[in-house]
């Protein structure tokens, strides 16, 4: 339990604090310029889940997501932050409606960006179909915001990672920023082990989990855009780079991504493990990647990605 939430540690600016240890509300406030974040549908509205109440389960006043608007580097931004400690950040009907509403408002009001602070296991299974519908509505709303020219930036740095339908939503956005502690995938380790057996994926093998789903591997594979330290200020700085800079969203962009994925599959499809992929990418001392600090890792990654580009004149990697 984090007794310091809401009240920054003495002498420490909110932005210098660990991103992973911060609550959703602290992340939303800490990412915005000091004092600029205003929460919408704040806890006093008591927008709690009717499904959880029907199941006689505890509810939360914000249904596990904080939404609102603030300023980032002086520009107006919308922010949604999932609370990973409430039901694993899972998306229920109210939770999803808050995310969808924020994105729809963004499509109308066109802020400089929408920041999606994701920490979630995906659909809240208690809410079944309502949760699934919510995910598809969020996905549609992401594309509507992007079509309106609003960059949607995903930040992942919580201990629960970003999984399930929200993992898919994340990859539908303009850019993703991750830290080493963060994980991004669709099926989680336990799900894969349950469905395919421990020989396929040993969920207890933390090294395996992180080198398959963690920030470093996602960065090397080109699935995320920035790899940062576990600091609110580092996430904030990275998000600033994308303000008013939407990524292309058209047929050509989709075709280019498909071509990139096809080439990646052809190149690494036979690899059994992330280590094999890193070796095939000719990353220096591939086995040491997980031990490198952020600066050294980004250097090693830059070298490997540059030589990959030379080897593939089309620059697909």
């Amino acid at each position, binding site marked *: 339990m984090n007794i310091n*939430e*809401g009240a920054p540690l003495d002498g420490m600016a909110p932005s210098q604090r660990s991103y992973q240890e911060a609550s959703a509300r602290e992340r939303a406030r800490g990412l915005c310029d000091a004092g600029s974040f205003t929460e919408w549908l704040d*806890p*006093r509205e008591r927008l709690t889940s009717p499904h959880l109440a029907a199941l006689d389960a505890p509810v*939360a*006043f914000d249904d596990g997501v904080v939404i609102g608007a603030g300023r980032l580097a002086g520009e107006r931004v919308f922010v949604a932050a999932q609370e990973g400690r409430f039901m694993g950040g899972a998306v229920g009907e109210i939770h999803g409606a808050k995310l969808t509403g924020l994105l729809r408002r963004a499509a109308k009001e066109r802020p400089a960006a929408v920041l999606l602070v994701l920490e979630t296991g995906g659909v809240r299974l208690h809410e079944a179909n309502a949760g699934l519908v919510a995910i598809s509505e969020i996905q549609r709303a992401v594309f509507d915001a992007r079509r309106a020219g609003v960059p949607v930036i995903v930040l992942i740095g919580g201990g629960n990672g970003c999984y399930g339908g929200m993992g898919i939503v994340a990859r539908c956005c303009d850019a993703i920023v991750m830290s080493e502690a963060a994980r991004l995938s669709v099926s989680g380790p336990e799900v894969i082990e349950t469905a395919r057996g421990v020989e396929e994926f040993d969920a207890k093998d933390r090294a395996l989990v992180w080198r398959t789903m963690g920030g470093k591997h996602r960065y090397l594979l080109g699935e995320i855009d920035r790899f940062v330290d576990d600091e609110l200020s580092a996430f904030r700085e990275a998000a600033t780079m994308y303000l008013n800079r939407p990524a292309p969203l058209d047929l050509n962009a989709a075709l280019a991504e498909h071509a990139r994925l096809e080439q990646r599959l052809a190149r690494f499809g036979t690899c059994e493990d992330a280590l094999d992929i890193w070796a095939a990418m000719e990353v220096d001392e591939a086995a040491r990647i997980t031990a490198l600090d952020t600066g050294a890792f980004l250097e090693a990654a830059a070298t490997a990605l540059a030589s990959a580009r030379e080897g593939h004149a089309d620059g697909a990697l």
Partner: protein
Amino acid sequence: MEQLSFSFDGLASCDRGVYAIVGVVASGDLEILIERHALDGRCEIDIQTSVHGFETTWRAVMQRFVSNRPLGNTRVTVNDSGATPAVVSLRLAQAAQALDEASA
């Protein structure tokens, strides 16, 4: 879930802060929403808890919380997921402090 309600009167009051929320509904933890309201000087407390049968303990913890604090005209609403009395007391102290600082 068990619903508990307590009302305390004869408390000092002050008008610092509008509302604050602390904690999270996670196993062994709770969230507390604390708001200033015109309640004729009373402090009204509503609790939803996943653990049944501890009304006496809740009452004792809340009695101690409101003593020596200017919590007249304050509404406290709790969503509890099995927090121990020690955790509840810490979160209550945190909520009172956050409400006070929210006015700054």
